[in-house]
């Protein structure tokens, strides 16, 4: 399995650490109701198909990556820097 890091290029999966779904990027604002927290930490769409999830190029540039990926075929259709995306 291979990911193309936007900075380092095409790399073997063993260089990356997987955290979870894109939901971890949408941190509830301070004081938000606990239900928002449940969504943020626990509830997931968990699709059998295209999803977006978070990978860390641990052995490379230490950048967090938002990867668009198919959970059935493992096809990867997009990788972008978490730090680079518009807030």
């Amino acid at each position, binding site marked *: *399995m291979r990911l193309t890091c936007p900075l380092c290029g095409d790399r*073997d*999966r*063993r260089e990356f*650490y*997987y*955290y*979870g*779904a894109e939901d971890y990027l949408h941190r509830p604002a301070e004081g938000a109701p*606990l*239900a928002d*927290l*449940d*969504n943020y*930490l*626990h*509830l*997931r*769409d*968990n*699709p*059998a198909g295209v*999803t977006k*999830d978070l*990978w860390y190029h641990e052995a490379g540039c230490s950048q967090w990556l938002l990867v668009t*990926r198919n*959970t*059935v*075929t*493992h096809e990867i259709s997009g990788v972008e820097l978490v730090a680079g995306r518009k807030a």
Partner: protein
Amino acid sequence: MRYSGLKVITEGLFGNKGWTPAWRDPAPKAEYDVIIIGGGGHGLSTAYYLAKNHGITNIAVLEKGYLGSGNIGRNTTIVRANYFLPGNSEFYSHSMKLWEGLESDLNYNVMHSQRGLINLFHSDGQRDAFVRRGNAMINQGDDAILLDRDGVREHLPYLDFDNTRFPIYGGLLHPRGGSARHDAVAWGYARGADQRGVDLIQNCEVNGIDIENGVVRGVQTTRGAIRAKKVGIVVAGRSSQVAAMAGMRLPIESHVLQAFVTEGLKPVINHVISFGMGHFYISQSDKGGLVFGGDLDFYASYASRGNLPMVEHVMEAGMTLMPMIGRAKVLRSWGGIMDMSPDGSPVIDKTHVDGLFIDCGWNYGGFKAVPASGWCMAHLMATGEPHEVAAKFRLDRFATGHLLDEEGTGSQHNLH
């Protein structure tokens, strides 16, 4: 028909023509009292215990493939009751008791054998954590023995005690731990449920759940609509897809876990062994194959197959722990779909829809839970109240913070 050694002899004398089908293959009726979605281990045991414990037999188990085609069809077959958190320890202890009577209860040889499970540890810190676990097991009424290094060497002389990266300090022996023949568990429960009148419907995929003003009415399937008063979702790795049909978003992320079997070998490993410094566990099946596995691949996946980095890590763990298996050749590798939950423990609970129940979140420990999961899901669906040993498996526990986190790794789904 009742199975026995005598029956095998008498049927053998007449060319085995007399054996009848282990289960019927009926077409789905228009309505049932109860529908169980999912013909895997947990679905079949739920149907069995609804019939056996609660006298409810007008049940349909709907399976999109063949019976036992999911995780129960391919796993490392370990049966253990070595959990330490209240909420888990009583559940798995209950499951172990059911395992110990399963052959006679089902009249089906599931080949459950308790040859002992040893969790190895490689530091003082790990030892203390296993002592806490072992004491919790004994407090629960189960069995645990602390082995020091020499104690481990007595049981497992072939481990590498001299030239290894993480020396063995000792092990926690769980004498009643062991393994069973996974397919036989599915087939035993299927046959038992079928004999009590449960309709096992294969090649029947559920693609909709009918709900009218908050009450479940039945399901839509590839073989037509079927009505029911109560519906149980028992589909492990596919839980999110089926729950979505009822407008539910679950605390589940589905992950691939690889497992391996070698070519058949004369007996060399008699126990189930778990390595503490790199997720690796191994046992030898009755047919002689070494059955072993390790960690998830760690990315969400429904592909039922994994990739080489984790394969290599598992093999390296095997070689540092027991280099004698070096010349054994991996015959087959496969991957399952693990329904990982945010604390590593399962969910057996009602839902916001009246009459709709959910049994999911088994991470990679579902096989040993098959009996108790069925027992408790049946109790919940029949009585509306959770069984006492499964009372803590609530769906809302993540929102309220009443976690059952055995690994202590927090809400990240793939760390359990």
